[in-house]
């Protein structure tokens, strides 16, 4: 390590926040851009599976809650792109990397929402897993990122409760509704476990990221915590976790559970998930069809500025 790098690591170790104007190693910057950018893209792409049910939400109240949620997600995307911009990369650059397939978004959004219960499951499980990942990031070393996380976590826990409320209504509803609830849990359980990423022993970047406090807990710790929190919730709903090997382990004070099929995880990551093509297509179309709008508004703003300058 260079003296600069040592000093930087000391600041992090002391729990100081790194701010945009501070010196930072190139690797730290790049890793953060990748991580925050991916997170931002996930919020944006994450609008799509839930957006799929806005026009079919079963009551006016549920429709409003879902609209508000999807709106929040777009807002999270904004905060996060802003945080990324403090690292010297623009939102448009990040977007173009997404659309060119050079940046990822969370693989969970490559699974379809097939029934209204899926909207419940996404809120309960997917937002639940997201919160588990994000709460520690409120203490991440990079100031703008940590502050964005504080705002985001507050809203996410609200979303999770709304999702759980949908699941509750479905699980206590008609036989059809209960079947939809169970089916949603069956389909979203393992993909939710995948959200924490592969076991850290298989992960290249983890050690450095943890040293930099960009990553706070290991993937396996968080996954365990998620399972331990979620199993009793499922039982309370009267739903069954689709894992015959799930069992309480008194000794470790947590559940033993089956790992997801990691080959599926890598396939989805490669683009071979059920909705990868549809999600990218929707975003590319929105971007391309919207070009004239962005250009039109820009041109108008320039005319305005020129008129002002001339006054």
């Amino acid at each position, binding site marked *: 390590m260079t003296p600069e790098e040592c000093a930087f690591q000391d600041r992090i170790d002391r729990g100081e926040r790194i701010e945009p104007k501070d010196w930072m190693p190139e690797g730290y910057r790049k890793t953060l851009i990748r991580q925050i950018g991916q997170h931002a893209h996930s919020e944006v792409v994450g609008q799509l599976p839930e957006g799929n049910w806005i026009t079919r939400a079963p009551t*006016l109240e549920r429709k409003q809650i879902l609209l508000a949620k999807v709106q929040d997600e777009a807002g999270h995307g904004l905060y996060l792109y802003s945080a990324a911009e403090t690292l010297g990369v623009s939102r448009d650059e990040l977007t173009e990397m997404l659309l060119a397939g050079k940046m990822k978004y969370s693989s969970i959004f490559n699974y379809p929402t097939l029934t209204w219960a899926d909207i419940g499951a996404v809120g309960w499980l997917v937002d639940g897993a997201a919160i588990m990942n994000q709460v520690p990031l409120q203490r991440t070393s990079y100031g703008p990122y940590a502050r964005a996380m504080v705002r985001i976590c507050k809203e996410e826990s609200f979303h999770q409760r709304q999702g759980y409320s949908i699941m509750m209504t479905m699980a206590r509803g008609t036989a059809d509704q209960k079947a939809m609830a169970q089916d949603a849990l069956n389909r979203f359980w393992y993909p939710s476990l995948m959200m924490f990423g592969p076991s850290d022993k298989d992960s290249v970047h983890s050690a450095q990221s943890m040293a930099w406090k960009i990553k706070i807990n290991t993937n396996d710790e968080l996954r365990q915590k998620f399972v331990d929190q979620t199993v009793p919730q499922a039982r309370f709903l009267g739903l069954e976790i689709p894992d015959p090997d799930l069992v309480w382990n008194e000794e470790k004070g947590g559940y033993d559970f089956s790992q997801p099929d990691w080959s599926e995880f890598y396939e989805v990551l490669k683009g071979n998930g059920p909705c990868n093509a549809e999600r990218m297509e929707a975003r590319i179309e929105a971007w391309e069809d919207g070009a004239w*709008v962005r250009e039109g508004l820009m041109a108008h703003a320039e005319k305005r500025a020129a008129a002002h300058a001339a006054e």
Partner: protein
Amino acid sequence: DAVLFETLLRVGDSALILGHRVSEWCGHAPTLEEDIAQANVALDLIGQATLWLGLAAEVEGAGRDADALAFRRDAGGFRNLLLAEQPNRDFAVTVMRQFLFDAWHAELLAGLAASTDPRVAEIAAKARKEVAYHLDRSETLVIGLGDGTPESHARMQAALTRLWPFTGEPFRGDATDAAAAEAGIAPDPAALEPGWRARVEAVLAEATLTLPDTARFRSGGRSGVHGEALGLLLAEMQFLQRAYPDATW
């Protein structure tokens, strides 16, 4: 009170159906800011519809609620303006539709806020603040895109031409509107036109757009005679309530 019930359906259905159309943009808007803004407008309109239809159901007193009105009427029972149900097409049509609607909606709500029925006045007072913001936004977009690039200008002009025939209906009242105006429940539709017209002309002029000279003849919403697009919209919107009639959600 049949006149009050019908009046509430007319206001509420327009908000609901336009809110639905706007919500179709979710995740597909040209910018992230517009994703947020469109969701926000949809949310406001559907929230207003919930209040209007809730009051309508209460006035009707037949055991229905706002959800029953929204999800269990077929197209012929809807009373929204035809303007509200027009398909999104491109963002230009969406923005222009919103502006033409907002400019009327703001006038209408100003009138309803002075309703002799305090429940109507209360909902209108709340909705009015939201719609003032919608109008502000849609004006800004119409001006920005109308006076933007040649392409954005052309698209906005085409959108205006497409939607213009639907802009006569809001001001053409029938016997129910006359009775509602008479009772002080709602303003006379025709009385809203001068304010709307002045606003529209001013904004379109600033947007460098030309007012079409075509007939503003399309109508039918008041009597439930809609366009073919509404039936398809409802098939989607009402699916769950129709497919699972015994469920609560």
